[in-house]
Every structure is written in structure tokens, then in C-alpha cells.
């Protein structure tokens, strides 16, 4: 029977399927498998209970993923990067560094989610499952060495976050945010995909190593296709990191989405998108950097200015922080624009420290938002220092760190990025970056003044508002973030060393 079938089809072709180095994929697989296990176990556990089973399981799985990444880190450092599955995956320092940053973002967001779900009377393991699946997409992006894998990682990352944005099903604005994010995000994905198609048309491959090799050994007589693909790919990445002409979704979506989800959006999603941006542009298109650097230059300037200037006129703290996160994306772009080892290193440092700052900030916002997640006006922060001195102090630390005040990690992050820009002789860009810091410092000080000033008015308002309850898990997240922000501010050495180890040499670029 089978021989007859083969006679019909012709001789069967034997395919050599690639052998897989599973150990290199472990961080991704643990997170992905963990999400599926949590979904199954979550069906057996009570949907709501006194004990936060879902949270602790999530933390355990995330810690397991980091635990798998750490031995890989040392292996990669000593023996060079791993290339897995026909070079579709490249496990190197960059992938592991940002992978760990993304998973830390998941842990912090999960800690905030627990109290939020209880307060808002939502339930179930699904938010945690989606957080982990989204982070899986982030890890896939960070380690992708193929544009198709990069696109799938981006989609996995985004789709889960679209659902998370609409998590609060009884809140209209949450659904609105999800809808807005979904429609605009789908649009930007289409741009990204078109960019991939054009890059394939120009170079004949979607594999980043092959693209790099092709561009190094061939001269394109007509590089219109390649330039168009640069522009389209940049739209896709720019949307995800909320860089300036593509930022307009960010304030609305941040305002409407559940606050713990926003902390994930601003930390892990940004880190993943920057991982992709650095991989594609700084490494694969290293030789053509004189073509893309000016575009990134302009985008960075716009992002810095839009993020800082528009933040000042806001009265809603969540929107302020949304604009400030746009501003921070601009800073990371300054590092990317340098297209040097030092630039990438500073971008990695920035993303790692910003994860703690922003997760902490939105942690405070989650708590102050109270039931309904609606109290985000500047007035709601009046007199916070008197009623909740520790919470106000934590917020103070995060805000000062975002402003780049000494003894916080924010200072070093900004310092390294601007140093890289100066080294790349982008003096004007460095100047704009410093100017935007000054403008946005005004915004952070406004929130600080609201918290520490205005005691008289708060006295009258005080009886109407019950005391804030800070859930235990959120306390852990805040303490960890404060310790990391001040710790890396006082002792930045270990993190700078790690980011130095993480960055592979740009072989073709020099």
C-alpha cells in the first residue's frame, strides 16, 4: 500500500531536521511550559482564596526561568554565543540580559497584580498566564535571529498585552484602552511585516546573520527597497516602544489599562521591543548605519521633546507617567542611535534600571488609585506624605530616579546614554536629551510637591477618604524596586559590568 503511495508521489525525500540544543532554549521553555501548567493547575485550584496560589506559582516559574538563564550567561560569556535551530535563535549576552530584565518585569507586575485583582474583585489565573505568555514573546524577540521569529515574538508579546489591557471587564475605559491598543497595534504589526517582506526582497533572506553577510559581500545598485524596509521596521518597533511620531496611543492606553499591566507595558514590553530594535538595526544592519542613524536621530529628538513637554501640561498622574515613559524611550533611543558597543551597553543599563523605577511608580499608582482604579488626578496625591509617609517616600525615590538625581540609578542610566551619544559625536542630540531632563524634572517635582505640600487642604478632605490598604505582595514589589533603584545608584558597578559582558562586539561595524 505504502509502496503504491510512494510510486504515486515519486521518491520520498528524507529531510534532515535540525538538532536542537535544548539547554539554550530553557529560559523560554520554562516560562512557556509554566504558563500552560499554571493554566491547568489554576483550573483545579479555587478561583479565589485567601492564599495567592497563582501569584506564588508565577513567581516560582519566573524564578525558574531566571535560574535557567544564569548558567547560560556564564556559558555564553566563556564560550561565545549559542546558535540554535538553524540559526533562528541566537542566545548571547544581549538575549540573556534583556531576557532577565523582562522576567523581572513579569515578577514585579505579578506582585502588583495580586492585590489589584483582590481589590477590584477580579479573579482567576488568567492574568498571570497572559503575563507569562507575553514575556515568552519578549524572550523570543530578544533571542530571535530571524525576522520571522522576531515578528512572531512581537505578536505573542503584543496579543497577550492587548487582552491584559482589557482585563478589568467592568471598567469601560479598560475595554476602550484594549480596543485602541489592539487596532493601532495591529496596524503597526502590518507595517513591521511589510518591512520584513521588503528586507527579504532586498537581501534574499530573513535570517539576520545571512542579511548581515549579504550586505557585507554585495553592493546594492538600488537600495530603495532596503531603505523602505528600514523605515517600515522602525515604525513597528517605534510603536511598541512608544517613540514619538508613533506614541499617540500611549497616554490613552496607559490611562485606561489596569495599573499593574501598565507597569508591565512600560518595563518588559519596552525592553523586548528595544532588544529587537538593537538586534535588527545595530547588528544586522550595522554596515548601513549611516542610512538609518539619521532616522533614529530625528525620532529620538522628537520622542525626548514630546515626552517631556507634553507631560508638563497633564493633570492626571497616570498620563504624566505615560509621557515620561515616552521620554525615557527617547533616552534609550539616544543609546541606540550611537550604534556602538558603548551605546548598546548604555541602552541595556537604562532598560534594566528603568524596569525597577517604572514598576515601582506604577505600583504606587495602583495603590493610590483605590477601588475602581480611578483616582489618578494630581489632587489625589495631595498630602500623601502625611497619611502614608513610607508610600510617599517610595514614590519620591522613583520620581527622583526618573529625573536623574544623584544617588539613584537614574543618574547613571542618563549619564551613560549621554556619554555614548557624545562619543558618537551626536552633540546636539546629547544637548536635547539633557534639556528634556530639565523639562521633565519639573513634572516629577510637581508630583512630589503635591505629595509633600498642600497639607491644609488635605486636612479638610481627610475624613471623606478611608486609609489606603497596601497589600503584602505590593509591599514586596515596592521594597524591591526601592532597594534596586537606590542600590544601583550607589553601586552601579555590577550592573555596568554585566551590561559590558552582555554586549557582543560589532564585528562588521568597525
Amino acid at each position: 500500500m505504502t509502496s503504491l503511495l510512494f510510486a504515486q508521489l515519486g521518491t520520498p525525500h528524507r529531510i534532515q531536521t535540525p538538532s536542537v540544543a535544548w539547554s539554550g532554549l530553557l529560559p523560554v521553555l520554562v516560562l512557556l511550559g509554566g504558563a500552560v501548567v499554571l493554566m491547568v493547575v489554576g483550573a483545579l485550584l479555587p478561583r479565589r482564596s485567601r492564599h495567592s496560589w497563582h501569584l506564588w506559582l508565577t513567581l516560582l516559574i519566573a524564578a525558574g526561568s531566571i535560574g535557567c538563564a544564569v548558567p547560560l550567561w556564564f556559558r555564553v560569556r566563556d564560550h561565545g554565543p549559542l546558535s540554535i535551530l538553524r540559526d533562528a535563535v541566537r542566545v548571547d549576552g544581549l538575549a540573556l540580559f534583556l531576557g532577565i530584565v523582562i522576567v523581572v518585569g513579569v515578577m514585579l507586575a505579578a506582585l502588583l497584580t495580586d492585590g489589584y485583582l483582590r481589590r477590584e474583585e477580579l479573579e482567576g489565573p488568567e492574568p498571570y498566564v497572559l503575563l507569562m505568555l507575553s514575556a515568552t514573546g519578549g524572550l523570543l524577540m530578544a533571542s530571535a535571529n530571524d525576522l520571522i521569529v522576531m515578528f512572531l515574538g512581537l505578536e505573542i508579546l503584543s496579543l497577550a498585552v492587548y487582552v491584559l489591557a482589557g482585563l478589568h471587564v467592568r471598567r469601560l475605559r479598560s475595554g476602550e484602552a484594549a480596543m485602541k491598543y489592539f487596532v493601532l497595534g495591529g496596524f503597526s504589526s502590518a507595517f513591521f511585516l511589510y518591512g520584513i517582506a521588503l528586507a527579504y526582497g532586498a537581501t534574499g533572506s530573513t535570517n539576520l546573520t545571512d542579511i548581515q553577510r549579504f550586505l557585507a559581500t554585495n553592493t546594492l545598485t538600488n537600495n530603495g527597497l532596503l531603505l523602505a524596509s528600514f523605515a517600515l521596521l522602525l515604525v513597528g518597533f517605534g510603536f511598541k516602544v512608544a517613540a514619538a511620531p508613533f506614541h499617540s496611543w500611549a497616554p490613552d492606553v496607559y490611562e485606561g489599562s489596569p495599573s499593574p499591566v501598565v507597569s508591565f507595558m512600560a518595563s518588559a514590553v519596552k525592553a523586548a521591543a528595544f532588544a529587537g530594535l538593537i538586534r535588527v538595526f545595530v547588528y544586522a544592519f550595522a554596515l548601513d548605519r549611516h542610512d538609518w542613524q539619521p532616522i533614529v536621530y530625528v525620532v529620538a529628538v522628537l520622542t525626548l521633546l514630546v515626552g517631556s513637554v507634553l507631560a508638563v501640561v497633564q493633570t492626571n498622574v497616570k498620563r504624566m507617567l505615560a509621557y515620561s515613559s515616552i521620554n525615557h524611550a527617547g533616552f534609550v533611543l539616544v543609546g541606540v542611535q550611537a550604534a556602538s558597543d558603548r551605546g548598546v551597553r548604555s541602552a541595556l543599563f537604562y532598560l534594566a534600571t528603568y524596569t525597577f523605577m517604572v514598576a515601582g511608580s506604577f505600583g504606587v499608582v495602583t495603590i493610590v488609585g483605590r477601588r475602581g482604579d480611578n483616582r489618578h488626578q494630581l489632587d489625589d496625591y495631595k498630602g500623601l506624605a502625611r497619611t502614608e509617609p513610607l508610600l510617599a517616600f517610595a514614590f519620591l525615590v522613583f520620581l527622583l530616579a526618573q529625573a536623574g538625581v544623584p544617588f539613584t540609578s537614574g543618574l547613571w542610566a542618563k549619564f551613560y546614554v549621554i556619554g555614548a551619544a557624545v562619543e558618537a559625536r551626536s552633540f546636539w542630540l546629547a544637548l536635547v536629551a539633557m534639556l528634556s531632563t530639565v523639562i521633565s524634572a519639573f513634572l516629577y517635582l510637581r508630583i512630589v510637591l503635591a505629595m509633600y505640600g498642600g497639607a491644609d487642604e488635605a486636612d479638610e478632605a481627610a475624613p471623606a477618604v478611608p486609609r489606603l490598604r497596601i497589600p503584602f505582595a505590593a509591599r514586596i514589589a515596592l521594597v524591591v524596586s526601592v532597594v534596586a533603584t537606590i542600590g544601583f545608584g550607589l553601586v552601579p558597578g555590577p550592573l555596568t559590568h554585566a551590561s559590558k559582558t552582555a554586549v557582543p562586539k560589532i564585528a562588521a561595524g568597525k
Partner: protein
Amino acid sequence: MVPIIVFVVAAAICVAGALGVVLNRNPVHSALSLVATLFGVAVLFIAQDAQFLAAVQVIVYAGAIVVLFLFVIMLLGVDRAENLESEPLTGQRPAALVAGLLIGGGLIAVLVASTITGKHSSGAKVDPAQANVNQIGRLLFTDHLWAFEITSVLLVIAVVGAVVLARRGAPGSGADAVDAGIPADDFGEPASPDTVPPNDVEETVR
């Protein structure tokens, strides 16, 4: 001669189907016209030696996606008349006309300028000696194995997302469950309605 006849017939089906999608008043007829267009495109794919794409076009687009459209149309109600005169976005009709003319003009300009050579791309590595279904299958299980596998994660997200978004206001969830044995203290603040300011309630949709 044969290729030209095939092209003309398939192109006529495509264009007729596309016109049917736009001009039919009944949405079900529009969706069915779309099937005709997709079939025409599938025939054009076969004429271009892209058998795999042709099969996918029929199975996925004509088969699955149009059926999904029909489901949605049926669920929303076929008989509900839409007022086509009012424009939700002012000026979208003239804008669509201008955009259509521009794109059409661009296509004609490309044809007239004869920048189309009809040669195979120097980048794409298609082996004319082998059927392209074999080549695609080979690539899926070798070079693009990882991409092929991780697509499944998207399906997992789709399932979980559907569960999360569909549970809107189901009995036993939300505020109804507060009384079921868990002290209100666990939820950060007392759940009694008088402590919730009125502007918070406005946001609550039940």
C-alpha cells in the same frame, strides 16, 4: 494562448466578486461574493506555479475566514438595516476616492514605465526543478522550524484571551462573589457601596 484565457477568466471572476462585495445590499451576499474573488485569486496563484498558496487561499481564506465573517454577520443579525448615508468619519468618501485614484494611477504608471521584467528575483531561492509544496515543507521543518513551532503560542493566547474577555459579567464572578465567605477586608477596602464614591460607580458596567 491558454495562460491568457485562464488569466482573463480568473481576473473577470475576481473583479466581479469584488464588485459584488461592494455593491450588494445584503451582507451575506457580499460575503459570498468574496468567496468568488478568493477563488479567482487562487486560480491566478496556480497560473503562477504557486500551488501551495492556491491551496491555502482556498482552505484558509475561502474556507475558514469567510465562514467566520458569515458567523459574525449572522450573530449580529442580517436583517438589521445600516444607514449608509451618514458618514461616521466626515470626508472619508472623497478621501477614499482620491486614494483609490492615486493607487490605480500608480499601478498604471508602473505598467506603462515597464519596470516589470518578469524575471525571477535574484534573492529568492526557488528551485524550478522541484514542486514548491515540497520546498515549502522542507523549509518549514528545517530553517523555519522554530517559527513554525512558536506559532502555537499564539493559539494558546487566543484561547486564554477569549476566556478572559468572554467572562464579562458571568454569574458568580465579580461583585456577586464577595458575599461568598471571604471577608471584605481582603479586598483592600470595604466593599459596602457607601464608601465607594459615586464617580467610581459610573465607570462600573454591569
